[in-house]
């Protein structure tokens, strides 16, 4: 049991930067390039951690608190998410509210740090981030409620992420498969928005006016930037893990097989994000709320399907 939990934690701490490498590789292949090494983000993080920091004169301590709180919050959220159908480190009734709350806390401090620079661009990024996040939140909650209804009522801690994504999930697929399909689609949309990927935000853009997440962190450098990049990778992994378990909920007896399916699903998620990024353009800013409201409506449909 302890061995399994440590393995899960190790995967959570070590794997995420690889996902960004996979996304970049998929995009490179589509563009006919060879692309960055798969492990590029690990190299970047290592380099950034050893670099010095430049801080704007306008800023106060809040600016330096942003990356730290952001990373700590995502790390704590990782303790709550059960991966590969195994119970999470911490599980209790309604723990997904804490999961969402921790992600929101990280965002709160990132946005404050952006406003602390006094730059119009970063203010713009903060405004967009909080706007889109508050629209993504209800969609995320409806999705989680649908899963809770489908398979979360049992187990040691009913309505916890561990029981919702636990051994009861394959059975829930038989009961409410269509609802879960809708939830997977809606959650994929939410994941793209929360992680600042196309079609909501373009992580590769070079124009501050059009960026969201990247523009908020323009002034961070050195270890602070490493914290932010690592936190973003962890967050991407959290959503990938959620989606992977939801989409590939097979009742497999062996732990290793379960883990393989799960990791395959997470990598597939990264490939899918890369595909979306290669095949789609970024939406215009005022279209983004429609995407997020669409995700909410889709998840509400799933709820109706389930409650009918």
């Amino acid at each position, binding site marked *: 049991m302890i061995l399994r939990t440590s393995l899960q934690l190790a995967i959570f701490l070590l794997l995420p930067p690889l996902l960004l490498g996979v996304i970049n590789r998929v995009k490179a292949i589509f563009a006919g390039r060879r692309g960055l090494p798969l492990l590029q983000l690990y190299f970047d993080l290592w380099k950034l951690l050893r670099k010095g920091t430049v801080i704007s004169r306008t800023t106060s301590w809040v600016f330096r608190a942003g990356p730290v709180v952001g990373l700590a919050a995502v790390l704590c959220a990782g303790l709550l998410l059960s991966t590969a159908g195994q119970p999470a480190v911490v599980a209790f009734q309604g723990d997904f509210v804490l999961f*969402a709350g921790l992600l929101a806390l990280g965002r709160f401090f990132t946005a404050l740090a952006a406003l602390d620079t*006094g730059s119009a661009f970063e203010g713009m990024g903060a405004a967009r981030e909080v706007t889109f996040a508050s629209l993504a939140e209800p969609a995320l909650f409806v999705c989680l409620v649908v899963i809770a209804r489908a398979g979360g009522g049992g187990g040691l801690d009913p309505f916890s992420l561990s029981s919702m994504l636990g051994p009861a999930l394959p059975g829930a697929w038989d009961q409410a498969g269509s609802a879960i399909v809708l939830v997977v689609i809606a959650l994929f949309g939410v994941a793209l928005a929360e992680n600042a990927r196309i079609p909501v935000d373009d992580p590769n853009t070079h124009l501050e006016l059009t960026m969201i997440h990247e523009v908020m962190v323009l002034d961070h450098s050195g270890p602070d930037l490493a914290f932010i990049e690592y936190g973003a990778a962890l967050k991407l992994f959290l959503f990938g893990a959620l989606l992977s378990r939801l989409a590939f909920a097979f009742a497999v007896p062996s732990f290793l097989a379960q883990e393989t399916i799960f990791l395959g699903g997470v990598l597939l998620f990264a490939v899918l994000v890369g595909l979306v990024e290669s095949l789609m353009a970024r939406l215009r800013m005022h279209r983004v709320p429609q995407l997020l409201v669409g995700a909410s409506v889709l998840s509400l449909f799933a709820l109706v399907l389930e409650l009918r």
Partner: protein
Amino acid sequence: MTIQLLLVAVAAIAASGLAALAFTQRPRLGQRLATTLFCAGAVAGLAAAVLALAAPEPPALALPWQVPGGAFTLRLDPLSAFFLLPVFLVPALGSIYGLGYYPQDALGARSVRLQLFYGLVTGAMALVVTAANAVLFLVAWEVMALAGFFLIQTDHEKREVRAAAFVYLAATHLGTLALIALFSILGSAAGSLEFARMQGLPATAPWAGWAFALLLLGFGLKAGIMPLHFWLPGAHASGPSHVSALMSGVLIKMGVYGILRASSFFDAPPASWGFVVLALGAVSGALGVAFALAQHDLKRLLAYCSVENVGIITMGVGLALLGRARGEPVLAALGLAGALLHVLNHAVFKSLLFFGAGSIQHATGTRALDQLGGLGKAMRATSLLFLVGAVAISGLPPLNGFASEWMISLASLQVLRMPAGDPMILAVLTAPALGLLGGLAAACFVKVHGIAFLGSPRSERVSHAHESPRTMLVPMAALAAICGAVGLGSPLLLPTLARAAQSWTHLPVDALAAPDGMAAHSTLRISLVAAGLLVLVALLVLWRRWAGKPARRSETWSCGYSAPTARMQYTGSSLSTSLVELFSFAVFSRLERLRPRGPFPRRAVLRTTVPETVLDLIILPAVNRCTGVAARLRALYRGYVRVQVLLVLATLVVLLALRFLIG
């Protein structure tokens, strides 16, 4: 014993202002004496509340009183005792804050008047939550409402203050009227105006629906539930900041108390009541925060945010009513416990934020958000304490706002166990609604803290800002500490909440009370994760300090542009525009724009104002229309005796005709 302690506390607090009045010649001493008396009373009152929460039987007192139907009956059941906590805590800290913020030696009679009514309103609130007789309750209610009116009117030379106070007065009397009608109905049904005799009234009686509507109108007006909130933004923005803290933090909770108390008289209220309350709460929450986002005035913004938080509390009450309607003990207990905890939490962080707003006004002389900026450098402590309040009110872990919102979400999840097709299951949408509210509140307070305290100063006066005196910082620090303590120590509050829930629901509360119960299990884990978060933050900061190289200072990156000014920063209005636009069905911003013209543009203006939809767009036009019609009617007969005689005659003829026609 407990109740005598409470009476002493009420007397000391209500009379505390007299000490200030007695020493008008030595204002410093007078205010200190008044504050000491106030705080001593509050400590006694808090002790009484704690004793009552621990007592096996609720302490009660009955004295004869020569008022028809009335009796001086007090009862301190756990629900009342729980409400006493914010009633004594917040105003006491407010009176300390007033030493620095509203000094008697500088402001003279104005400060004396404020202290008189400040004590009076607090004493009246303590009586409101402990009265066990309808007449006594109404008398205390009216004293509270009138003292509140004088507190709002403190700066009565200002026209907008007088207007706001008048709207408050009209609204609160409309509410009192509804309450008199409500207690008349309940009293005649029960045969007594004693609350003890009103227990177990049938909710199926034909008059019960009317009573429920009156209850919502009377107490909803005080609580500021949308659309009955129209008086609230003006009133809470107009008074001095510790008055706003008292009103927003505590006084509006009297409406919540009233809803809980009056609904507890009914035996198994129908599910429809629960749904109505739940829906009202959701609407208040969403529109309250939308209006808050659209405000430019810091205190108006905080006032609208109170509408949102009352909405959250109301949602908890709605779930608890649903639980009682169905006899679902877990739903009822968790819903009520979440609502009560949020009552306490909101009192704490909202007064913290209002104190912070007062400090900003004290330091800069303005409440306009878009004039502020960069205050965090001159006011380091205020900035940190305000940030604690902002995180707490956004419902984010690890602070107290999260604990109560989580509890309400958890209550709503319980309905997922109902069979498919049961309408009750719709109540699960509370959880996504709270998610939306949390996101919007976070956006709102990113705006408030980010625009006021971070970046660089947006106007001249802000650059001369100074830190507040210690008398203002200490109460804020105490409130911030409570935010953290309740957030981390929520398991310790469960027994208290369980007792209050038990006294209200009359259902088993094992889920809350049992030491190995579900709530204890979960809150303990929340505290663990919250503590883990704090430890992680500390470790990361230490690691960065230990391993990182010293930081270099430079300019903010602005795309290579080398002379950015403070006016180029994003403003609060621009930050919230796109969210406010999503609510354009209810929030009607008015845009005043003068575009720059010609090759050498001279003047350009862009100004948005956000009218209060219910007050400015519905009630005031309707009132104006009515007065217009009345004035025209009056013009018909004013000065013409013949017309007046004709009118008397016509009325007589019509009445006689009616008499004969109807029989």
